[in-house]
């Protein structure tokens, strides 16, 4: 340990000396993601998107005349690994920490950052949450140095239900099927809360283990027994795929409303089974074609694939950061995180989907959402199949916005 600290400080010193010679120290941004192991597929998408937009920022001159340095840390998919990597990132001199996949990991990172900032007043670090969508992150756990640039459970569920209701496909009986952890419980709670407003009944609510179930047929049987028209689910990855396939195999005539159906591989694996199911997401390639087409092609030319799933909203979040950085004066050791926090609260960015901004009260991004359906008519096909996502309704940022949670008691500095 001692040796490692020594090596690290020597390396940091060498870097510092090198940097003073060149001018101000470059801004260091740390990506603490799941880069290995079974859940790495999503973490690597976050990395692609972050790299893409930081490349853009550096092309435009970087920060304080220096290109931004992106440090990568592998949290190995769990909160324990993340806690360790966050410590390493901070000691390596990162001013901003980025993380997205898994609300469970996000919960750990945001607490670690909050505690670090309490102990190191005047030398704070900032946590930009690119994709942890559990409500508590901008609720009970909210704090001044956490910013969420993705939607949250309330935004996802309410826009999804609004869009499906307006398209006349929601039906009167809704089944809430979710994974048993913070995110799944939030989706369930928000579905139940919207019942009176949109005039449907929640016939049953089920929470099940996360990514452990191979055989969903017993659950499908419950859906059938409950007589549901629609299943609203926050499930992702295998839990979503297997549930849909099992329902289709049983000949069940239900429509799925989902949050993560656009994960790569889902449409390819489900095929025709996915047709007609709904998704609410912050991006669709067919919206604002004149701007979006350029973004799609440029992203593909840099990363080798079209942006999908978590990538677009991550790019948009980094655009917001880019706008905020323009309003911040560089200091000798990079930047002052407190300045950046103020700038982020006031930042707006023009994305291909429309304007996104940061709400000062709880640091939740306010962004447009697109309710979409899986269809053969899509322009951009998913996973080389004949299916893709067709926009049904574009919900403007202010309409997608959900109230600030009462549990968020943010303590502002000064």
């Amino acid at each position: 340990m001692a040796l490692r600290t020594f090596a690290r400080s020597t390396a940091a010193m060498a870097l510092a000396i090198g940097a003073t010679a060149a001018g101000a120290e470059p801004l260091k941004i740390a990506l603490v993601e799941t880069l290995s192991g079974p859940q790495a597929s999503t973490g690597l998408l976050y990395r692609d998107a972050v790299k893409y937009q930081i490349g853009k920022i550096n092309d435009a001159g970087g920060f304080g005349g220096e290109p931004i340095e992106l440090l990568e840390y592998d949290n190995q998919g769990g909160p324990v690994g993340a806690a360790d990597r966050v410590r390493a990132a901070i000691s390596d001199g990162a001013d901003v920490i980025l993380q997205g996949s898994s609300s469970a990991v996000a919960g750990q990172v945001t607490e670690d950052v909050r505690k670090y900032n309490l102990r190191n007043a005047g030398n704070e670090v900032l946590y930009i949450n690119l994709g942890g969508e559990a409500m508590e992150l901008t609720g009970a756990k909210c704090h001044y140095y956490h910013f969420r640039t993705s939607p949250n459970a309330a935004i996802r569920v309410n826009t999804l239900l609004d869009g499906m209701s307006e398209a006349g496909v929601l039906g009167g009986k809704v089944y809430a099927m979710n994974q048993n952890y913070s995110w799944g419980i939030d989706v369930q709670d928000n579905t139940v809360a919207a019942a009176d407003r949109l005039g449907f009944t929640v016939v049953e609510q089920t929470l099940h283990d996360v990514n452990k179930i191979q055989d969903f047929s017993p659950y499908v049987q419950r859906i059938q027994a409950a007589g549901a028209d629609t299943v609203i689910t926050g499930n992702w990855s295998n839990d979503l795929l297997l549930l849909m396939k099992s329902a289709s195999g049983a000949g069940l005539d239900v429509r799925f409303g989902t949050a993560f159906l656009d994960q790569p591989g889902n449409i390819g694996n489900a095929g025709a089974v996915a047709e007609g199911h709904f998704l609410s997401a912050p991006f669709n390639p067919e919206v604002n074609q004149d701007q979006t087409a350029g973004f799609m092609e440029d992203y593909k030319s840099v990363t080798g694939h079209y942006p999908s799933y978590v990538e677009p909203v991550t790019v948009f979040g980094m655009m917001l950061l880019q706008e905020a950085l323009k309003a911040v004066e560089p200091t000798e050791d990079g930047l002052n995180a407190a300045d950046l926090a103020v700038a982020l609260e006031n930042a707006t960015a023009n994305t291909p989907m429309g304007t996104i901004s940061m709400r000062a009260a709880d640091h939740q991004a306010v962004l447009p959402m697109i309710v979409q359906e899986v269809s053969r008519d899509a322009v951009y096909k998913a996973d080389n199949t004949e299916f893709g996502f067709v926009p049904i309704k574009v919900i403007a940022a202010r309409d997608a916005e959900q109230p600030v949670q009462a549990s968020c008691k943010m303590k502002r500095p000064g």
Partner: protein
Amino acid sequence: MPLLTGVSVDQILFALLNGTIYGLLLFMVSAGLTLIFGMMGVLNFAHASFYMLGAYFAYTLQPLTGFWLAIILAPVLVMGVGILVERFILRHVHEHGHAHELLVTFGLSVVIAEMIKMVYGKFAVDYRVPAELNFAAFSLSGIDYPFYRLLMGGIAVVMFIAIWLLLTKTRVGIVVRSAIYRPQMAEALGHNVPMVFMGVFGIGAALAGLAGAVAGAFYTTNPNMALELGVMVFVVVVVGGLGSMGGAMAASLLIGITNSLAVGSDLRIADLMSLVGMGGWAEDLGGLLTMRMSSLAATLPFFIMLLVLVLRPSGLMGEKE
């Protein structure tokens, strides 16, 4: 009875059928594992990786050969991989003992998973049940029962009978069993014991490959599938008794059916305690006591394993301690 409120006979029938078929799938994978352990004493950590390889091989072959030939050829290829692993890796490690075998097979499972990711990508591939097999076998109170599920169950049953006959009724079976119990004597009688071991390992791998080729199309074929099933397969083998084929069958069905019934049940521990007049106390305490059975379903197999290990450490039908 709070147990049965709102549950029809049809639903219970379906739950039993679902549980049985899922159990049979678990058996298909664990059969190879328990066979290898029972005969060679090798606890093969990479076994579920053979299951994954079977699925990916069948996915690759399907466009070239059609579905049926693909699920026949894929296990043959997996057997080839298994034989190579036994011949060139395990055989050298065997003499160093169980710890080394475990480590080597564990490493192998990681290597296979990473190679799959390199070749086929990180996400699920579009390996699906062919359209001509994708129909309902029968329909009960509004739910179709997919024919393919019955097919999977049928293949598992045929496999069980075939292995049983092979081991107990044929000359090959006699040689294999004697090679296990008295290797020196079998060798002295002119049988090639290392060859027998290699064959057993290959067959065990092929069984897992067959399960993967069949089940991969029904569930999903992705780089995590070995991990997802691997743990459950070990639970089955431990509950059934290491090395016992009949035990593996019993444990698979037990786990499949309890899981399926638990998902459909809203029973809580608090409800059970109210039968002895402690319901109110349990409600107040909350926590685990008021959790629904359905949200604990995936944890039940581990609970069963714990119970079996405490009460009968050798497993349901195991002979070895």
